């Protein structure tokens, strides 16, 4: 009843109406949904299995309430997140300032959370170049500075949406796989011991 086991928590952050919910909707209600679980009750929480080469990882994508009145609570949301997709609207410079604020918050409070910057609504810019309010190179500099990945997406056309989540999944797999292979090395040395070779508490 409590849905599938989820490997990694991914939170969506950003100012109201930058397109967080649309991004999740676009990603999830489009094409291949691996795994037995279909979220039919709403898009607030979505579990999605992603296959990257020979590994499958299940992302738990956490959408947050958009209204400003709940913004103060966001800190509770990103606790324990493995990845945060910090969104801003490419046609709204104030939303990029807000994104910078979230990044600072995350760096201070969740050091193990990987940050992905996501400029949304590229379709609007493709239609009208003057609509762009956030300069590509400014974002790139900022991304370099905080060592974050950077994407520009459109939930309308689907551009780069898949790439974004795929990258999140791939990064998660590569970090956990490293940890697991380290552990396996240790286990080989203990192979002769019976199950639970020692007491696990004092």
């Amino acid at each position, binding site marked *: *009843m*409590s*849905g*599938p*086991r*989820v*490997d*990694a*928590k991914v939170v969506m952050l950003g100012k109201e109406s930058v397109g967080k*919910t649309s991004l999740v909707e676009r990603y999830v209600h489009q094409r291949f949904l691996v795994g037995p679980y279909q979220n*039919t*009750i*709403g*898009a*607030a*929480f979505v*579990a999605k299995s992603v296959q990257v080469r020979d590994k499958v990882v299940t992302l*738990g994508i*956490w*959408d*947050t*309430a*958009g*209204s400003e*009145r*709940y913004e*103060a*609570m966001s800190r*509770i*949301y990103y*606790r*324990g997140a*493995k990845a945060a997709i910090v969104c801003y609207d490419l046609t709204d410079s104030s939303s990029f300032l807000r994104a910078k604020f979230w990044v600072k918050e995350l760096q201070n409070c969740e050091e193990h959370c990987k940050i992905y910057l996501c400029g949304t609504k590229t379709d609007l810019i493709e239609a009208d170049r003057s609509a762009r309010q956030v300069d590509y190179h400014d974002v790139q500099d900022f991304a370099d500075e905080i060592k974050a990945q950077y994407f520009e997406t459109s939930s309308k056309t689907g551009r780069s949406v898949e790439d974004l989540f795929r990258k999140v999944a791939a990064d998660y797999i590569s970090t956990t796989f490293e940890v*697991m292979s380290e*552990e396996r090395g240790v*286990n080989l040395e*203990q192979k002769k011991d*019976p*199950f*639970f070779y020692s*007491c*696990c*508490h*004092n």
Partner: protein
Amino acid sequence: MSQKFERRGIHVDQSELLCKKGCGYYGNTSWQGLCSKCWREEYQRARQKQIQEDWALAEKLQREEEAAYASSQGAQSQPQPSLAPFSKFEEKKTNEKTRKVTTVKKFFSPSSRTASKKAPSEKVEKVPGARERHGETLLRDLRGIFTPPWEMVSPTEENHEGKTPSPSVSRQSSTETDRVSRDFVEFLKNLQKPGREIHKQCRAFIESMANKKDLGADELSECVQDFYQNMSDRLLTHFKGSTDRVERVMDQVEKYIMTRLYKNVFCPETTDDEKKDLATQNRIRALHWVTIQMLCVPVDEEIPEVSDSVVKAITDIIEMDSKRVPRDKLACITRCSKHIFNAIRVTKNEPASADDFLPALIYIVLKANPPRLQSNIQYITRFCNPSRLMSGEDGYYFTNLCCAVAFIEKLDAQSLNLSPEDFERYMSGQMSPCRPEPEAWPSAGPGISPALREARRSLDLLASLEARQERVLEGARTLESDLIDWQESVEREVREILGRFPLEVRPPASAIDSDNVENDRLPPPLQPQVFAG
């Protein structure tokens, strides 16, 4: 109009769900129809009475026990409680009397002895050494009878009358604990040898926790979390990286150890969980005037399916308090959330989003005023297996509940788009947003209470039933006259046929053999025989 109200049972009448004390909050059948607050007050009163009676009994039994002990000269072995007590509760009672506000909970906590200690400590003389311990054990066992109903599988299984309680009657391990232990062993059997190991580890851990009585809540949590971590690391090695199997075992491990630790680590006295519980409860009461419109919740309780989901959501969130295992509590939150999603989906005719869900959950929490909300949140946070809590769907709903509580705590005029003046007036009870113009309330105003709306809906339904009944009566009358017509027509027909074919009355056929042509083939009639002598 009020007479019509007496015909209930057509709908789930919202007013029947409200607290019987009329305080305006939802009642719960397991609390005899009262809300959590009123129930506690009631319960405390009844409790106090019972405690006095029980103590009288306890004293009597203690005297008997001591007499028996004295006569056996200490030859017998000391009965030990099945689980070593967290004796911090017995040591730290110095400031008890000053903490009047928080005494309520102590009646819920079998390991606490606040109110109960006063009376006998004055009357019962302390017996030194082992005999004192013996007496203490007995009293502690009797206190086991005080276990609140939600900690028991079935109240009837405990000897409430206490007519002949022996120390073994009410060992702290209740029937539920026993059942959980049996299930755990059954589950582990399938794992064979590692199963035995897991069982051993869990038992050792529970015993070790009994010695950590002086630790604060955070340290207790750390111990349990370390244990989970260690156990799942080992399981991961054993199952060669199959996280699903690890998870399955860990769920059982959590169930087993937390059922046993619950009493001592839920809302422990070393924390201010309980103070927060009361503060939140009062806060929610003070916010009784907040309407669904102020929170912008897309839930239309006029729709029966929606109001049904709302009631279920409220019931689920209230039920959380009755569970012992963190994951079971979490499951209540998840069920509540799914009902909320359903209410939104039906109202909006499209799937709910995070924007709708959080405000709706806030609304449900305000309506339900769930008992010991802060304690439950803290307990789940401290003792739930983190893999559930941090990333999965349950964790998402739990996090939203935490946000809802945080929002309710901080809620101000701005969060409801009200002027600070109005907010103050509502908070102080000078004004109610529902009734700015009293003559308007029976009409379908937006701020009208769900109970009234429900009543109006029942009235409408009664009216339509009346119309239908009228139609049925009409039909019956038609049928009656049709039947009369039919009877007449049948009679007419019969008479007509009789006229056309008049009856020829023949003489009745005579004795059986008179006209019988085959008579001679029959054997001669039997003659009566006469037997002599």
